[in-house]
């Protein structure tokens, strides 16, 4: 009698969880792609963990706080690793609507992924689209920062060059007039005859003509 009941229960279970059954979802894992050498083998313990995670997700849904691990049914596990799962209600007569399961899984996708060291691409729930994380944008785009730096440097350099050009031009226009003044002064002061400047009598000093000896020195001392 008990055996019969057992068979009946498994038969019902078998009917509930089938590929393409109503409210059933296919899951595909790519453990080797994600972890490479550190890949673990998929066995019944991992399946138990999966059931636990799904049950956990369902318990977060209002009105489904009583979901147990035994309510989650897995079937058709392949070598790929892929399988189908359904979540039944406490009476195990019918499966919970797909919409509820979908929203529950989406809410807790991150935690399910982390439990298996996988991500959205390697732990796929076919037919449940994942919410992608937007790329982190800094508040000020980086290109603007660099652009402002370069632009400021260029503007400063241009200003410097323009200013130096103006200063150079001013110096050039002032330069020749200054040179003229000194030359005039020189000409006023020094008269040149035969290439030798003749100092006017007003200059102090004078030149000593060594060819002439003074009176005192003509006679040698005794």
């Amino acid at each position, binding site marked *: 009698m008990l055996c019969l009941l057992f068979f009946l229960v498994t038969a019902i279970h078998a009917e509930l969880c089938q590929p393409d059954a109503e409210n059933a979802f296919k899951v*595909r*894992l*790519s*453990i*080797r*792609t994600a972890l490479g050498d550190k890949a673990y083998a998929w066995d019944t313990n991992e399946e138990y963990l999966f059931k636990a995670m799904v049950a956990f997700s369902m318990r977060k849904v209002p009105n489904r706080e009583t979901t147990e691990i035994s309510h989650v049914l897995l079937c058709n596990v*392949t*070598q*790929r*690793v*892929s399988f189908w799962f359904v979540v039944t209600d406490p009476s195990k007569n019918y499966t919970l609507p797909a919409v509820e399961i979908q929203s529950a899984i989406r809410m807790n996708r991150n935690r399910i992924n982390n439990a298996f060291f996988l991500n959205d691409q390697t732990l796929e729930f076919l037919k449940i*689209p*994942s*919410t*992608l994380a*937007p*790329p982190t944008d800094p508040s000020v785009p*980086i*290109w603007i920062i*660099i*652009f402002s730096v*370069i*632009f400021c440097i*260029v*503007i400063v*350099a*241009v200003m410097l*060059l*323009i200013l130096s*050009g*103006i200063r150079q*031009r001013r110096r050039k226009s002032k330069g020749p007039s200054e040179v003229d003044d000194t030359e005039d002064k020189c000409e006023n002061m020094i008269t040149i005859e035969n290439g030798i400047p003749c100092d006017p009598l007003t200059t102090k000093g004078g030149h000593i003509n060594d060819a002439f000896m003074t009176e005192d020195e003509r006679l040698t001392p005794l």
Partner: protein
Amino acid sequence: MKPAPKVSQGAFLIPYLIALVLEGIPIFYIELAIGQRLRRGSIGVWTAISPYLGGAPQGAAALSAGSAGKPVERQMLAQLREGPHGHEHDAPPSVQGPHVGWRGTSSRRPWGRQGAGVGCWVSGALWPGSGGGAECRLSAGLGCLTVSFLVSLYYNTVLTWVLWYLLNSFQYPLPWSSCPLDLNRTGFEAECQASSTVSYFWYRQTLNITADISDNGSIQWRLLACLAASWAVVYLCVIRGIESTGKAIYFTALFPYLVLTIFLIRGLTLPGAVKGLIYLFTPDVQVLQNPRVWLDAATQIFFSLSLALGGHIAFASYNPPRNNCEKDTVTIALVNSMTSLYASIAVFSVLGFKAANDHGRCLDRNALHLINEFDFPDQSISRGDYAAVLAHLNATQPERVARLPLEACRLEDFLDKSASGTGLAFIVFTEAILHMPGAPGWAVLFFSMLFTLGLSSMFGNMESIITPLLDMGVTHRFFPKEALTGLVCLLCFLLAICFTLQSGNYWLEVFDSYAAPLNLIIFAFLEVVGVTYVYGMHRFGDDIAGMTGRRPGLFWRVTWKVVSPLLLLSIFVAYVAVLAWTPLSYRAWDTQYARFPSRQEKSYPGWVQATCVLLCFLPSLWVPAVALGQLLAKRRWKQDTWQDRCPKLQDRGAS
């Protein structure tokens, strides 16, 4: 112009080398020899050869962005633009840089004097001895100015794009590595999903391109800011004329070589690079039967060696009179080609790596489909096993295999793939960089190299605009040079704003394809014919004997007299024929197109076609226009003086 059919680079080398030997080197030799012999700037040179040729080639001087035009950068960017497939369209004078043979800049402003313009030619023909006069300079300046002005407008826009990419390279991950999310964050943006992340970044986030050239859209403020910055940088370098340019050129000329070497070393060590290089350099002889390939090679040589620009004449005039210019010619041309080859190897090794990478990922995607369908263990089909497994499955369960969306993954297809137009460097190469370890660093290096290359070309361009203005004396003596340069840069900036519109890229392609090539060919033809037939081969031979010690050999004489002029004439005719008979069209990025992401082939509206034709011939139109004006003026002058001098005669004649 319609894009040329795809050819493997190896096959393109053959027409390129033939064009180099038969067309490039002879014309180059003529320019160097004539400049060295007559030792004048271009106006003087051509007037001395024959007053008839007073200014013809000089008009083209301005064409050259930097008649110092360095081939390699032009070559490289041209190759990047057209993909591993040689010529998708004629190489524009888009990338130039300092010439290998540049013998130093001096305050003599080589380009300025060469403003000879095309107007001189006609005026010289009608009034012998009038070449070089004030009217000549005017027409010269006008011819030069127009072309340089047009080129600098659109050329700096390419620099703007490069600057934009450079600014965006300073982050990890690079912004073109991932698609933005769609509205409900369950997937990626549809346009990005359908094309690719790099294409999306280029067409949408950079250009924000519209689907049609007549649909202008709005100004993109990001590009506007970058345009202002790049014009500011150009102004900074050109502010004092040759004084500041000469200093800047040391950096802008040497830096690209450094970066190229780094890329070469990195590129050759990447997996798949060698295979790519081998494939790309093996010639496919079938391709040579297409005349379009030969046409493209011939025009590429022009831009590569910056022929017919007057720059070489000016530089050669600084040479000592007894310099062996024959050796110079051959050396420079060979070094130029070697550098181009060097650049191609660097570029194509990276592209080969990209192709190998894409091929591998294609195989991986197919393998994943098989694994998912037949529930094989994860990672059980490696790239090597794929073919065998597929064959086995096809034999055992063909219906299930047929239902799968498997792609055909052939390495040759990936190697052949190339975009066309100015976006090539921004799409294909940026994607290749994404897969290199340390991507942001490589992106920064690559785009700063492109920026310095473009900048060095812009120097020449700006010189070609400013020096004729200074020579013509349009401004007062006390008007500072910095102010004139600033005004020119400001004007160019304001006009170039139209390229920052959403349809700017389409307009840029118009300018790129039609503003320069035809004029360049006309001027080169006049050069060769002028020297060989008008000046006289015998006289020219004597000059060369005086300079190098021996007369030009048979090869030179044959190419100068027969081969080069014929080649140039045929190129000119072919160009005009292509222009006239093929409906001018462009490739638009249209998200509504049925076969998106392929670009849709659309023909230009009538008014755009008229603009294309105008651009082609406008600079050359200065010749007849100014000549006509001078003809009328001179005739009136002659009539007046004749009447003044011989009133009696006139009376007698009248009666």
